[in-house]
């Protein structure tokens, strides 16, 4: 592409601008790209590329189903997560590992597909409830940290100077502390205070997770600020706000979306550790991390209590990470820089 083409592409284009201006990896990629001539809108190209990433598409479908199950499944399922049924310590016998054998017809399997605990509470209902909490937290954290990170990163990269230095020192500071420790320390008195503890946990994690996105956005802004199309806009009398919102922000849409996706997975994992060690979600409420902790205590007698919540987390995070990977490829095929 010529300079002019690049500049034009950056104009109407969420996320093409290869911010680093780097040479695409793989010796052949350079020449290859030079030849793509057919015109498509940027959005079409992104969607097309994403659909091309089969694993990401499958992951998206699975993820949407899981989210739906987490959000609404608890209301549809025939037990609640606190209901003590008469069936104590039911094994999910449809899986031979748990001391049964393949008897798909047996009704008890479908009564408690993930078994029950020593009080007869249905594990599946618990997992649904835990997933609901974990997903709520993760989505809030991703949203919050993306908004904060993007705004601060944009300010930092656009105005530079003192503001930039201050914000960057702040991100340095945030990255110095282990997230689990600082979130646990700040959040414990809130999470332990009542039934809405998870809201506070989400807030705190969100306010602690923004530095990553902030740095990404700042980097893109710093490099785009000096580009000709920004100069052109400025020469035409555009104000800072217009330049930021109309010309620069569209370019960070790609990296920001990818980062937000990965934050979802990271937040779920952080919540898990926090709740496991006792600084996150507190009983009687439940979350996947708490369920793992309870399951771990019983793992010799009732291992299913340990396995299922964990598998649920893995599937959620795996699909999220695959979606993120697909999005990254879709937004910027040249750039394989991963911090997956």
């Amino acid at each position, binding site marked *: 592409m010529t300079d002019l083409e690049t500049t034009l592409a950056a104009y109407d284009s969420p996320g093409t601008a290869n911010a680093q201006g780097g040479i695409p990896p*793989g010796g*052949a*990629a350079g020449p290859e790209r030079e*030849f793509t001539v057919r015109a498509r809108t940027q959005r079409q190209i992104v969607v097309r*590329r994403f659909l091309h990433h089969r694993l990401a598409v499958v992951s998206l479908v699975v993820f949407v189903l899981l989210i739906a199950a987490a959000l609404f499944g608890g209301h549809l399922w025939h037990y609640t997560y606190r209901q003590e049924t008469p069936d104590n310590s039911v094994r999910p016998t449809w899986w031979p590992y748990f001391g049964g054998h393949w008897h798909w017809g047996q009704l008890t399997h479908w009564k408690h597909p993930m078994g029950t605990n020593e009080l007869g509470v249905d594990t599946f209902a618990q997992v649904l409830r835990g997933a609901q909490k974990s997903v709520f937290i993760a989505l809030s954290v991703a949203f919050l940290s993306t908004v904060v990170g993007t705004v601060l990163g944009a300010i930092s990269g656009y105005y530079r100077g003192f503001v930039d230095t201050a914000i960057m020192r702040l991100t340095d500071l945030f990255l110095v502390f282990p997230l689990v420790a600082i979130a646990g320390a700040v959040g414990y008195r809130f999470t332990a205070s009542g039934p809405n503890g998870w809201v506070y946990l989400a807030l705190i994690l969100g306010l602690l997770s923004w530095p990553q996105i902030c740095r990404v956005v700042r980097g893109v802004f710093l490099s785009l600020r000096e580009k000709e199309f920004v100069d052109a806009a400025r020469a035409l009398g555009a104000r800072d706000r217009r330049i930021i919102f109309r010309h620069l922000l569209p370019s960070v849409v790609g990296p920001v979306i990818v980062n937000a996706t990965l934050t979802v997975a990271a937040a779920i994992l952080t919540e898990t550790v926090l709740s496991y060690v006792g600084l996150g979600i507190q009983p009687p409420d439940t979350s996947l991390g708490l369920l793992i902790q309870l399951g771990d205590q019983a793992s010799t007698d009732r291992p299913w209590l340990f396995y299922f919540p964990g598998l649920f987390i893995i599937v959620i995070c795996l699909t999220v990470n695959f979606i993120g990977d697909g999005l990254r490829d879709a937004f910027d095929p040249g750039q394989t820089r991963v911090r997956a």
Partner: protein
Amino acid sequence: MASTAATSDAGASGTGGHRTHDSGMERLIGGRRHLAPVPGAPLLEVTDLTVDFPTDDGLVHAVRGVTFRLEEGEVLAIVGESGSGKSVTSLAIMGLLGKTARVGGSVKYRGIELLGLPQKDLAAVRGAELAMIFQDPMTSLNPVYRIGWQLAEAIRAHHKVSKDVAMRRSVDLLRMVGIPNPEERVRSFPHEFSGGMRQRAVIAIAVANDPDVIIADEPTTALDVTVQAQVLEAMEEARRQSRAGMVLITHDLGVVAGAADRVLVMYAGRPVEIGSVDDVFYRPRMPYTVGLLGAMPRLNDATGGKLVPVEGSPPSLINLPDGCPFAPRCPLAQAQCNESEPALREAGAGHLAACKRLDAVPGLVAERLGGGAEAAAPAGVPGSGEEAE
């Protein structure tokens, strides 16, 4: 005389005027038995070279049958727009394309087929026999090693000499390409060099082993205009001293006029015209070449100083039309042009052009380039006067 290059200490002598095979005597490349040059074979012979890249959108036919010969000491310029396949051609000759590229045809150096050669054999050829100068000097040098180290490494890759000898030769090479104070500059890192200096260093690396073929891929495109002429001069000097043949890839016709003996014009992955500089500049027989010449600034202009751009844009290399790929942009296009792609035809002695309406082109030349063919002569071109032969 076998493996002279490996045993001689040509490196230490510094001036590089040392030749071992002008007589066409038999020798082995890198001491490898199966890399024996064929006596009497042309220096570089590219036959029907094709390069395809698989992409998400389909197979990109980047190069579609390039054929040319390069004789000893000759400078062949390859010109064309971005995306016409010039760079890919050069990388294919050097065997430097990525794994995904599908390369076909034949590339023979002194009769040795280079395509499909194992990496180890290619390594013996590269740098020693065929050297390359890349487009972007800012990224071509490894940032973590000193300039002298990178030069010495190139020398020691092909000559069994001590580090000290290689370093002294590096200093001489830097001096040759016009870097002031070379004794100190060998100790610099690339980031301490300007763009022009880095390109000089890259040129020094290219000629370090006295190659017979230098492939220069747009060597001055990334440089400031003021530096371009100096770097071209350094390159010409280096080439003259090593008496190598050169494939000069560029889209700057001024450079071509100044430096080249023959010109190959590429369009949409194919050569569309090939001939001596005089033929191509004064008697172009392909409308695309006429367009290129018309888009070039000239001092002694008869048409009133107007530059005429070539309208339209090159075709997609994924779905190529059946006919002449230039037809949609061609002022002479007729129905027959869309039927099939024209082959290269004789348009004069040693002058080939791919056009169905060869005979109509001179009329276009008169109209576009202001009648007298002489008007097409480029002027104000760096280094043009002294070099044109």
